[in-house]
């Protein structure tokens, strides 16, 4: 079932998803090229997390097709999961395990060889400054430490595609910088990254292309220059483009109302 020859890491075609009366995704089409860092932006409830979960088979679309690294997600979700590293928004970890036990568990689930598992776990623990706390139960970790463990668990088995929902949330500046640089290095190795974030400066700094979602639709898609052109805002930062494209730019009256 596995295909190795693919030019697009992700192919989403005419995806529709409803939760009762709420239309979470409305005919979304999206293609992410292999080896690019793709940023998915949008206000809360715009459909970003649903799209990401669908790529792993965690949410079933009502209609449309999804293919990840050449594999039909519906037909072989296990094969897709084997190739993808995933960090959900606010990941819940097994709090009764220690950090090292959790990573050991992940390594085994993804079938890593013992020596490679040991080497990579130790490298990541050192890089993200978790050394010395790896033997403590996760229940005593801070949110930032838990996020680091979640990130290591997505990186350690060298996946071909990374799906990261708010990956830098809770990280200290040093660790956030390491993760950003690391994503660039992975890109050079051909790894595709799809990430969502509300910190637009991060998206602008590290993403090759950006997609902006609003009310379940993909409003805009392209590089920074293409987005500027679409918004007719040359030389503007992503924040202004985002607010204009999502129609939420006129925030002055809202602030004034709050100040009353």
């Amino acid at each position, binding site marked *: 079932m596995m295909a190795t020859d693919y030019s697009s890491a992700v192919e989403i075609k005419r995806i529709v998803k409803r939760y009762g009366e709420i239309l979470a995704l409305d005919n979304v089409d999206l293609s992410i090229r292999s080896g690019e860092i793709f940023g998915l932006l949008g206000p809360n409830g715009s459909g970003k997390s649903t799209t990401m979960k669908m790529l792993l088979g965690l949410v079933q679309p009502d209609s449309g097709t999804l293919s990840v690294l050449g594999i039909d997600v519906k037909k072989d979700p296990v094969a897709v*999961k084997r190739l993808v590293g995933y960090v959900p928004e606010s990941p819940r970890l097994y709090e009764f395990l220690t950090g090292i036990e959790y990573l050991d568990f992940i390594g085994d689930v993804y079938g890593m060889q013992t020596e490679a598992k040991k080497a990579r776990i130790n490298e990541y623990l050192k890089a993200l400054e978790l050394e010395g706390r790896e033997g403590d139960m996760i229940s005593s970790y801070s949110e930032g430490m838990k996020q680091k463990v979640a990130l290591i668990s997505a990186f350690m088995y060298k996946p071909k595609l990374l799906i990261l929902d708010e990956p830098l949330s809770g990280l200290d500046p040093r660790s956030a910088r390491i993760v950003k640089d690391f994503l660039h290095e992975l890109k050079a190795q051909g790894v595709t990254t799809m990430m969502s974030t509300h910190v637009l400066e991060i998206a602008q700094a590290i993403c090759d292309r950006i997609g902006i979602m609003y009310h379940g639709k993909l409003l805009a898609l392209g590089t920074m220059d293409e987005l500027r052109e679409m918004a007719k805002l040359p030389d503007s930062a992503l924040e202004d483009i985002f607010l204009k494209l999502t129609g939420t730019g006129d925030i002055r009256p809202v602030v004034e109302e709050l100040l009353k």
Partner: protein
Amino acid sequence: MNWKNVLHLIRVEMNWKNVLHLIRIDMKSGRFLRGKRLTRFRESKVFTYVLYGGALVLGLVVGALAGMFYVSASATDPNFAALANQGMLSLFLGLPTLVLIYSLVLTMMQQIQRSGAKFSSQAPYWLPITWGEHTLASILANLFGFPLVSIVFIAPAIILFSTFTGQVVAAAATVLAVCAAAFMASAVTEVFRILQVRFIGAIYKSTGRAAIWVRFVGSLLFFLVFYIVYFYVVSGTGGIYLVQTIASAQSTIWFIPFVWLGMTLYSFLNGLILQGIAFVILSLGFIAALFYVATSLNGRYGLYEPPAITVSRGVYAPKTGLLGRLGFSTTEGALIRKDLKAFSRRRELMVVFILPIVIILAPIMQGLGQMGRPVPPEASSFLVALVFLLPSAAMATMLGTFMIGEEGMTIWRIYSSPISPNSLVKSKYFFIVFFSLAILVVTGTVGFVAFHPSLRTVFVALLESVFLVFTLGSISLSNGIKGADFTEVPRPRMIRTLQSFINLILCFLVASAILFPFAPYLLSSFVPGLAQPLMDLYVAVVLSSIIAAFTTLIFYRISIKNADELLRKAET
């Protein structure tokens, strides 16, 4: 104790709206039921109405029936009324203390089974809510469930019955005392809850790496003691004996605050008004003091976080496990090891190890103890069968229903990992069978030492227990997957109530079918003069094994089908 502070706490610092909101939060979090598609929560009040309404109706029915019996028995036997009235007085005197012990055990058990999820209880701490409000809400919310159900049952039953016996005032006073007793018990539990967080923290700190084992053994012992006390109070003659003892002995132990409510009733019912008033004041003072202590402790240690448990230190070296050599893939081995750690480290899951043993062994041991004479051979065989069959079968049933639901909100990890339905079921099923067989070894050894059965009996009981473990494990796993409930607060639910009920019926029917070939043997041992069955015992074993193997296979396949559906329709 500064009584001004206590009064200030109750009068000035208490916003009753906040207390009601907090109680509602606690109750609602307990009532959340997940919708079929697991995308939103919906609330069901039906269970609450059935529970409390049912208890009320049952109380009225019991009171009315007892009253009618009283009237008819008094008409035929003139001494009956006097005896019954005396008996009722004894009951009234003992009831507050009995309810206190009962509520204490139940509220303690509720507390120790609560989820360790921190987010569930921390929200009120940053809101403008005083510790007094928080403590009162916690004490009252802890009474919801069986402690309150028992009061809702007792109150109408004794008041209605007392209208027949002419003891309405005494009954009403008893109901008041019973309510106060339940509150007293819950307040003690609240004090205990805060102290145990603080002391367990200190123990973890001092024991270092051994903390994990200290916690495991400590929790098991704690559960064991409480369940044995619980069974003694609620089962058979234990409760009645306790009421009689309390009623007659509380005058001699009047200095213990827990019997002051009973002493209040005793004093008033015997016309000792001044003494009664003194005990009312003492009881109210004790309740206020408990509340004050609980509030102060909450203020001091309510936000205390136990120190981290360090399980390992030094350079990480992954272990190559035995599971690989047993034919499990690395994924399956990882899942089994993870579950092993979950059941030995998560306090709310440790109950699994205790319940099957205590539920079955406590009544048996109690029954044996009361006999006080050698057990007859036919009863011995029956008890051997019980000790062999029931704990391991109960363990397989419980573990089967819990194995998927225990994942809680961390189920996303299973959903997003490359785990096939086959691997998931294989690893979970192995865990169920392994632990149930371990329980069988322990209880079997106890049974062998206690009853000295023949080798033939041991052999057959052992085989049948193994058949039951395999079959009930696969049935329960299939239902545990189908009805998995990942709700975590206030305590993990594991499985939806309806599916759990269906599972119990199914397990009972299949277990009966597996053991059916032995029915003639059972009848011939208990019915004197009945001829020995013609069928050889080992033929019965073979027949039983065929039924077990067939059912196990079918439900194992159903489990895989259900797991496939679970993983495909993840939607966390």
